[in-house]
């Protein structure tokens, strides 16, 4: 809400602007600012004409010396007839940018240098007066910014009002807040209109059919008005609040809305069928053309104001075009009513209209202020637009609004909640400042009477907040909490996510965080068959775009998109991972299943740098290394099995990741179609782990075993094997066969090519033997090695090279 600060000052004495902004900010209002309205006059200052003489070369110009308060007075050429020695004037120095955009330069006028300009009102965009310069108050301090001196009514108070405080959305409401924080008396303008002519009831009949939706309706009749433009003070105040001037009648209804917070509407009385007002539900199929020119299709849930034959306004939201006050209007009906907040809110939402009226009705108005606002508007209309106010309003009442009249507050309980030590008198006093009159009820209790405008106060907690707010949050003592020392719980899923991140970072990957949305095309591009469970996604009802219309069931598309984007930004190598949740629908209106998932991508480095290995391992094995490391960080030992891999991986370069018998993820290079689909221009490997699949799996516990002091004996075996023989199986068989003295067996070389028969490959294993207590003899080692060699020949057709 925005309104003229000077207008507010007419209602209550204001403290200095900084204090006002600060207290309203800490007292419950958002984004509180005081702005100057009007042109940017920075750089224009108060100057004094210290000397005034004729221009040597021009009769109509004068040459002035101006003191701008910053040292030596300067010579300025002036063309205005009204300039005189001793005047305080608005002075713009060289370099000042004037409101019309021109920047003042030092210039020669008829041969004399002018060091600035003495400004007219028009040059400062303060008015149209161009006949002479703007002469300031003689008391204006030389050198002061002009904005501080001109009392043009040029400041607005701008603030955000929280949804519970509809009562504050008016001058009266803000004046009450100022009063609560700073004290003072509120001067409410006169509301009673002078009355003449026949009573209102002879011109209008009012009935409320929808008694639950309309609590109170007041109509006042004004006869013989002259509709026309509003006086300037009215338009200025409306404009300061961002409202457009329409005509003097409509403007008054808006002005009173700003003053008292009560929405009003004025009908052209002559357009009402049978001089009748009915507040009722709309008929099915009924139509209404609202003031904005839109034709609204009404439904029975809409509350309307109707005459004898048709709807003429959407109650509390917007009036109708057919009964609008226009130039030819002579007689008026002013409506001031109290509609149910929810009814107005639903109507406003349904029709997409958010008006000043609906804003206030939705938040609740002062139920006791309905009549006063009608009177005030009638009075102001008579003043501004002429006409006679008919005696007496016509009033109708529906079911009374549900209100909280009294709240009993337990002061010790309040202190226990806030950490304060206020007594009942202090509490009563603080509440009185927001209009809640209190009386003591014994045993530390006070009972507060809730004012009619505070629709947000329902229980003791609400009063507690008021006490805290008015007392000031900064005055509540800051204390350390006291509690029992109990162990901190960390969910295992949380711990797994954190361990996974650590493992991936240690493996040299960067963590990224991406949005959870994918599109149907993404799932095609990763080659998911129609029946794949990952095709089942949660659809977003109001997505950002079609390509972001699903919650992802897999992280793969998100990361592959990043690979392409980073490559297009000339990244030599992409090494990224994300750990977060993916979503699998469960149907039947249930919440989706959220699983913690890890995915990582590594691309082949496009650059070869100084220390890089001449033969870097194939990408698959780099990714396998990352997988092994992460799984170890999570507390498990990973094994890798060919086959059974997702469709986006290369069938010949992918593996399932297993822990024991359980498949927990996959690792591999990308399928060429996926590479093409995502327009990736380098070899790329992918790693995925389903972290929730680890739930319940026994951790691989590390155990100490005695470190032997005996010498190790190493034996290297180079064996010719079939090319398609999985080396891992061979290694496992070696470990089984080599006997109890084998401490390790590793594969350390693999070679095919010259010297190795076609279809065969030479694989070299290193076997390390050691006994815990004795030195092994050559014979013992030879016997174990011999056993291995025989096994290799027998089971794998292996020949020693």
């Amino acid at each position, binding site marked *: 809400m925005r309104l003229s600060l000077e207008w507010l000052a007419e209602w209550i004495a204001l403290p200095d602007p900084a204090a006002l902004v600060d207290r309203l900010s800490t007292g419950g209002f958002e984004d509180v600012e005081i702005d100057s309205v009007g042109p940017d006059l920075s750089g224009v200052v108060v100057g004094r004409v210290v000397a005034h003489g004729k221009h040597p070369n021009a009769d109509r110009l004068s040459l002035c010396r101006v003191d701008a308060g910053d040292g030596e007075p300067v010579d300025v050429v002036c063309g205005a007839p009204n300039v005189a020695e001793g005047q305080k004037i608005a002075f713009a120095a060289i370099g000042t940018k004037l409101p019309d955009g021109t920047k003042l330069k030092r210039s020669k006028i008829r041969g004399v240098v002018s060091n600035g300009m003495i400004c007219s009102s028009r040059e400062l965009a303060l008015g149209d007066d161009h006949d002479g310069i703007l002469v300031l108050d003689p008391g204006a301090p030389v050198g002061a910014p002009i904005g501080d001196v001109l009392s043009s009514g040029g400041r607005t108070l701008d603030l955000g009002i929280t*949804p519970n405080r509809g009562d504050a959305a008016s001058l009266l409401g803000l004046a009450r807040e100022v009063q609560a924080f700073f004290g003072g008396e509120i001067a409410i303008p006169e509301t009673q209109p002078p009355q003449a002519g026949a009573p209102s009831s002879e011109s209008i009949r009012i009935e409320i059919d929808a008694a639950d939706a309309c609590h109170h309706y007041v109509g006042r009749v004004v006869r013989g008005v002259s509709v026309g433009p509003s006086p300037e003070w009215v338009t200025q105040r409306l404009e300061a609040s961002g409202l457009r001037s329409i005509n003097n009648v409509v403007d008054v209804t808006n002005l009173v809305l700003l003053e008292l917070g009560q929405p009003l509407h004025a009908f052209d009385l002559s357009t009402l069928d049978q001089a009748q007002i009915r507040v009722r539900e709309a008929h099915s199929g009924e139509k209404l053309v609202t003031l904005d020119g839109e034709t609204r299709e009404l439904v029975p849930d809409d509350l309307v104001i109707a005459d004898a034959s048709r709807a003429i306004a959407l109650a509390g939201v917007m009036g109708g075009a057919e009964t609008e006050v226009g130039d030819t209007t002579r007689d008026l009906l002013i409506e001031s009513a109290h509609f149910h907040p929810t009814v107005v809110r639903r109507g406003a939402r349904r029709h997409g209209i958010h008006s000043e009226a609906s804003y206030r009705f939705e938040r609740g108005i002062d139920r006791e202020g309905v009549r006063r606002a009608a009177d005030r508007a009638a009075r102001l209309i008579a003043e501004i637009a002429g006409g006679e106010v008919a005696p007496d309003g016509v009033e109708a009442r529906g079911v009374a609004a549900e209100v909280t009249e009294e709240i009993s507050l337990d002061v010790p309980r309040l202190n226990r909640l806030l950490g304060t030590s206020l007594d009942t008198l202090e509490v009563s006093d603080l509440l009185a400042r927001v209009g809640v009159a209190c009386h003591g009820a014994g045993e530390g209790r006070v009972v507060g009477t809730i004012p009619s405008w505070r629709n947000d106060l329902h229980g003791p907690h609400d009063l507690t907040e008021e006490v805290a707010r008015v007392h000031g949050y900064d005055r509540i003592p800051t204390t350390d909490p006291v509690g029992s020392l109990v162990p901190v719980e960390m969910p295992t899923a949380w711990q797994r996510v954190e361990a996974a991140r650590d493992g991936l970072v240690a493996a040299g990957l960067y963590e990224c965080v991406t949005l959870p949305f994918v599109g149907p095309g993404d799932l095609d591009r990763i080659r998911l068959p129609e029946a794949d469970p990952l095709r089942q996604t949660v659809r977003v009802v109001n997505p950002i775009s079609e390509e972001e219309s699903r919650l992802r069931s897999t992280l793969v598309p998100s990361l592959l998109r990043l690979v392409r984007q980073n490559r297009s930004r000339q990244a030599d190598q992409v090494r990224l991972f994300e750990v977060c*949740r993916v979503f699998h629908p469960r149907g039947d209106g249930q919440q989706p299943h959220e699983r913690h998932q890890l995915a990582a991508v590594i691309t082949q480095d496009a650059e070869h740098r100084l220390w890089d290995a001449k033969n870097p391992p194939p990408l698959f094995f780099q990714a396998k290394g990352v997988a092994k490391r992460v799984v170890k960080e999570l507390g498990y030992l990973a094994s890798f099995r060919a086959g059974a891999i997702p469709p986006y991986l290369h069938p010949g370069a992918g593996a399932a990741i297993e822990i024991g018998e359980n498949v927990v993820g996959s690792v591999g290079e990308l399928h060429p179609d996926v590479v093409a689909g995502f327009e990736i221009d380098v070899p790329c490997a992918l790693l995925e782990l389903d972290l929730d699949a680890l739930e319940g799996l026994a951790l691989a516990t590390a155990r100490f075993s005695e470190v032997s002091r005996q010498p190790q004996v190493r034996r290297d075996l180079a064996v010719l094997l079939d090319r398609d023989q999985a080396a891992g199986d061979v290694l496992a068989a070696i470990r089984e066969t080599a006997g109890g003295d084998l401490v390790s067996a590793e594969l350390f070389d693999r070679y095919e090519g010259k010297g190795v028969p076609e279809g065969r490959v030479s694989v070299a294993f290193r076997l390390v033997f050691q006994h815990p207590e004795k030195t092994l003899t050559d014979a013992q080692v030879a016997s174990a090695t011999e056993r291995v060699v025989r096994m290799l020949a027998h089971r794998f057709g292996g020949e020693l090279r």
Partner: protein
Amino acid sequence: MDTLEDIERRAREAIAAADTPHGLAEVRASFLGKKGSVSELLRGIGKLAPDERAQVGQGANATKQRIEAWAAERKQALEAGERDKALDETGLDISLPAAGPPEGRLHPVTRVTRDMVAFFTSMGFSIEEGPEVETEFHNFEALNIPADHPARDEQDTFYVEGGQLLRTHTSNVQIRAMTGRTPPFRFIAPGRVYRHDLSPRHSPMFHQIEGFMVDERTTFGDLKGVLHAFGRHLMGGDVELRFRSNHFPFTEPSAEMDYACLLCDKQGCPVCSHSGWLEWGGCGMIHPHVLGACGIDSERYQGFAFGMGIDRTAMLRYGVPQIRLLFEGDMRVLEQIG
């Protein structure tokens, strides 16, 4: 003929002047070798009287030992110098790039989250997580935001098929964690949240951390105390906080917290939109309706809750101008601030 003194003096000079091990060997031989000065002098000893002979003989042997020692000392020095020179010549250009495993880093939001979690776990807060796809009940109704409440207008909510929504705040975890538990307890809940806001200064996804503590005596003053301590942990010991009254349906009294702009010391700058303060989050005493919705007796128990963005802290800490940069997965950005 030279006296022993002459020989010693010359030997000392010659040894000091020798600048290579080879030159030194020659110098040594010229004094101690078979044809060396000392040997020659000893050869003449036979012509002397017996008592003189013994005296000269003893003197010559002492001279011989001294020259030997000087030569050995000099030899060691020359060899050490040669090795130093050799080490120098085989030295590396240590300004060449480091080798080693590639570098990886956590996302800035993860790092800030860990920092926050470390603080709160040190204060005895446990971690609790809730679903990101949430029911209207847990995201709104149980938090005292009924369907017709104007506060729902302020939340730009993503809805999904099936009637649920992407949680708009981490406050849903309050409901999830409190339901079925009996105070005392204290929890934090960090996580991703979503708002349908496409303006350039926002992101449809961001991160919040929620905290709440309930028992029989935790006060609004304690809430201020915890947040002051948290602010000092996060932003340094002299951070200044401000609590502004505000309205949230799920707390009462409610407050928004600001911290004094660290860049301009409250003088106003572009980072704080010239207000001198930066919004930090919302907090308050948990509304009795919320406690009630979780089955907790609000007459007996009370407590506070707070929630704040994580991303903004990360942005300030690493000087990231726009939140979206955090979520674009740009290696150039992650390598800088990761």
